[in-house]
C-alpha cells in the first residue's frame, strides 16, 4: 500500500509558486477615468500594462455594469465563484464612487473565501474630487495584484496603502471594517489575518435585481433617473451633497436608502428614519441583503432604524 502524504496548505502554496507563474484574474467593473470603454479597449489597456506582467500571469475579464439594477454585482459574485479553480487570487476593480459600497456588498455575498478577492479602484486626488490619475490607478492595481498573490484570504478592500477586511460576527451580517495589512515596500499583513485555505465560497441566491444605485447629480437628472429605473428600491448616494427633500423624488410605493458622507437614512412608507450602521457602505450592504432575505418587512429590523 502506498502512503500518500498531503502537504499542509501553506507548503503546497509555496510549491505552487515555485512551479509556475501564479495566475491572477482581474474583473474590471470600472476604475479608469474614461467610463465608456469597449471590452477591446479595456483588454488592450491591460495588455500594455507591462509592469503588471512582472508580478503574475494576469487575465482580464471586463464586466458589464448595468445601470438599471445591482444585479450585475450578484452576477459578478457568481462569476468569481464559477471561475474559482482557475486562479490563485483575483482583483475586482470598481469605479471610485461605487468602490467601497460595491466591495462591501461583495463581502456579504462571499463571507467565506479561501483565496484573496481584492477590491480596488483609482484613488481620488486631493485637488479635485472627481479627478484621478492613471499612474495612481496603475500603482493601486500593482498593490492589489501583489495582495492577491499573498497568503491572505477573503474579500479585502485595498484603499490607498491600507488593506481592510470585514470582521464577521456569527450571523455574518454585522461586520465592521478592520485593518488587515498595509502596503509599504511590500505587503505587511497582520498576524491574525485569515490565511489561504481550500474554502470555496458557496454561490449566493441573492440577485439584487430589484435595487438600483443612483449617483449624486443634479436634481433634474436624479428625478429622471429615478423615474426611468424599473427597480423597486433605490440607493441614492448624495456623497458630500445629499440635498434636503431628496426623498420626495422617490416614486410612490418604493423604498430608498439615502446616503450622505456621514450618515444613512431609510425612506419607507413616506417617512425617513436614520440607519444605525458603522459606515454608509455597510448600511448599503445591509439594505440590499435585507431586501433579498426578508423583503421590505425586514428592513427596519435589519437596519436598526430610528425615527
Amino acid at each position, binding site marked *: 500500500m502506498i502512503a500518500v502524504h498531503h502537504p499542509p496548505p501553506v507548503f503546497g502554496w509555496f510549491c505552487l509558486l515555485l512551479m509556475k507563474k501564479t495566475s491572477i484574474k482581474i474583473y474590471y467593473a470600472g476604475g479608469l477615468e474614461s467610463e465608456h470603454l469597449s471590452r477591446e479597449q479595456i483588454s488592450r489597456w491591460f495588455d500594455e500594462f507591462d*509592469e503588471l506582467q*512582472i*508580478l503574475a500571469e494576469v487575465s482580464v475579464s471586463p464586466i458589464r455594469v448595468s445601470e438599471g439594477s445591482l444585479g450585475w454585482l450578484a452576477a459578478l459574485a457568481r462569476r468569481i465563484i464559477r471561475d474559482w479553480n482557475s486562479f490563485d487570487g483575483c482583483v475586482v476593480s470598481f469605479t471610485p464612487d461605487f468602490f467601497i459600497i460595491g466591495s462591501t456588498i461583495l463581502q456579504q455575498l462571499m463571507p467565506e473565501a479561501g483565496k484573496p478577492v481584492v477590491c480596488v479602484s483609482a484613488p481620488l486626488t486631493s485637488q479635485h474630487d472627481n479627478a484621478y490619475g492613471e499612474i*495612481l490607478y496603475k500603482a493601486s492595481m500593482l498593490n492589489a495584484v501583489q495582495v492577491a498573490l499573498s497568503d491572505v484570504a477573503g474579500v479585502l478592500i485595498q484603499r490607498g*496603502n491600507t488593506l481592510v477586511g470585514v470582521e464577521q460576527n456569527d450571523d455574518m451580517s454585522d461586520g465592521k471594517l478592520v485593518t488587515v495589512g*498595509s502596503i*509599504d*515596500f511590500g505587503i*505587511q499583513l497582520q498576524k491574525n489575518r485569515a490565511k489561504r485555505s481550500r474554502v470555496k465560497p458557496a454561490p449566493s441566491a441573492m440577485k439584487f435585481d430589484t435595487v438600483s444605485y443612483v449617483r449624486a447629480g443634479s436634481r433634474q437628472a436624479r428625478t429622471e433617473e429615478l423615474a426611468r429605473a424599473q427597480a423597486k428600491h433605490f440607493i441614492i448616494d448624495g456623497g458630500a451633497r445629499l440635498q434636503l427633500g431628496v426623498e420626495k423624488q422617490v416614486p410612490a410605493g418604493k423604498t430608498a436608502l439615502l446616503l450622505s458622507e456621514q450618515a444613512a437614512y431609510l425612506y419607507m412608507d413616506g417617512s425617513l428614519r436614520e440607519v444605525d450602521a458603522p459606515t454608509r457602505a455597510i448600511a448599503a450592504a445591509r439594505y440590499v441583503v435585507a431586501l433579498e432575505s426578508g423583503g421590505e418587512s425586514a428592513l427596519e429590523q435589519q437596519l436598526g432604524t430610528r425615527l
Partner: protein
Amino acid sequence: MILYIHDNKTGGVIEQTCRTLGVEVLTAADAEKQQADASQVDTFLDRVDAMVLEITKPDQQVQFLLAHAILAQKPTLCLYGKNQPPRELLKYVKKGKPPRPIKTFSYTDGTIERSVANFIITHDPEKQEFDDIPSIKYTLRLTPRIERYLEWYSETHQTTKADRIRELLENAADESDDYAEGERVEQ
C-alpha cells in the same frame, strides 16, 4: 539622499557601501518596523529618492518593487551576479527607449562596491557636484579633421574645445548600453 535596499545575497555589502558614502538607508526590515503613515504619501516610493535591488534570484517582493519602480520611473539600480542574469525580469527592465531610470549591472565581488558608488554619485546631488568637476588630466591625440571641427565649434559657440569634448563624451556615456569594463551600466 534616502535609498531603499533589497538585498538577500551579498551579506550586507550594498548596505555597507551606501552607509560609508553617507547615504541614509531604508531596508525591508526598517520599513516593516517604521510603518509610515499611509495618508502621508501617494505611494511608498515617495519615501525614498532611489532604490538598489539585488535581483539575481528575484522573489515576489523584488518583482513588486521593480514593477513600481518602472511605473514611477524611480531611479533604481538592479544588481545581479555575473553570468546569473534573471533573463525574464531583465526583459521588462530593458523595454522602451533609453535613457531608462532603471539601470542593471552584473557584478562580481570586486566590482559591486564601485557600481553602487557610481549609482549614488549619479543620483545624489550633493555627491554629483564633486563628480562633475573635471579634475583628471588627460592627453589625447586628435586627427587634423577633428581638430578643424573643434576649432570651428569653439569659435561659433564661444566655448572651449575641452568643454565640447567633455560634452560629447558625457552624451555618449548617457546613451551607451555598454559602459567601460568594471563600471559598465547597462540600461
